[in-house]
């Protein structure tokens, strides 16, 4: 659970940094405001859509949207209870060029004890129009092991 008075950015960032795939692609949590999460990804060269293409592979935008959307559920719920993606739909509006970092802004539209609906927009840094939008539905409080709470992580238990 996000402790009262704890820094939500620090809690969400700490969680995200422990996700191997997010670390692999170089995603970072920039901001957490209420039920909205901002993430950034500075693309290395191996994220090109094709050898010689100036465009980032769409699968990378997909991963970034999935990650940001999941973190938005935690932000809205104010706790790190386990979630599972039921579906995610991406619209790739325009190419995302490899020379600019990606910024994702995900916000929770509606959340209940069982489900959460999230929208996400991805921008090329410095551009006003999004390069992609995502729409995800998550199952909440899924069975299986619970994540360590922020408390436990601090205690090292």
């Amino acid at each position: 659970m996000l402790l009262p008075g704890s820094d939500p950015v620090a809690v969400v960032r700490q969680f995200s940094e422990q996700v191997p795939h997010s670390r692999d692609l170089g995603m970072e949590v920039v901001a957490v405001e209420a039920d909205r999460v901002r993430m950034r990804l500075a693309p290395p060269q191996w994220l090109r859509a094709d050898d010689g293409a100036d465009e980032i592979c769409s699968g990378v935008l997909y991963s970034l949207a999935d990650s940001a959307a999941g973190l938005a559920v935690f932000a809205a719920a104010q706790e790190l209870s386990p979630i599972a993606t039921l579906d995610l739909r991406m619209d790739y509006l325009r190419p995302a060029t490899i020379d600019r970092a990606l910024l994702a802004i995900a916000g929770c539209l509606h959340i209940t004890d069982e489900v959460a609906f999230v929208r996400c927009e991805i921008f090329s840094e410095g551009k006003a129009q999004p390069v992609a939008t995502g729409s995800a539905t998550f199952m909440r409080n899924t069975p299986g092991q619970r994540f360590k709470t922020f408390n436990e992580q601090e205690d090292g238990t």
Partner: protein
Amino acid sequence: MSGIVEQAESRDDHAACIAWQSLLARIPYARHLGLEVQLGQTGIEVHLPYREALVGNSKLPALHGGVIGGLIEITARVAAQDQDTRARRPRILDCNIDYLRSARARSTFASAEVVRHGRRTGVVQVTCRQEGASAWIARGRIQLLFPATDR
């Protein structure tokens, strides 16, 4: 007679495998994920070998949903490009994935069905299963746009 037909089919499959592999080899992210083409029971499959860096939930552990998304999108692109007579590189317009079961820490295989291949657009459905199980773990539908000029 049937033996001859099977032989012809297997030769086609073999040629298609080589074609898919050469398309995959040009995609840096596919190389990073370690994707490889193989012939499965139901035809050509794209194999995503398990690595710790693909994990999204270390507790279960389970693969990141984005990794499955990348596998599905790249498989759809390669399937669509392989069927195009001019081998045009398609651009993905949208992608819609249903997650049916948790993706465990093991090898994953994606199969593609080109639902429609038009002059300008294509629709590909991709299903994913994992090593040791036949049940689908995810299903995706991808709309692709082919460029007007050859690339």
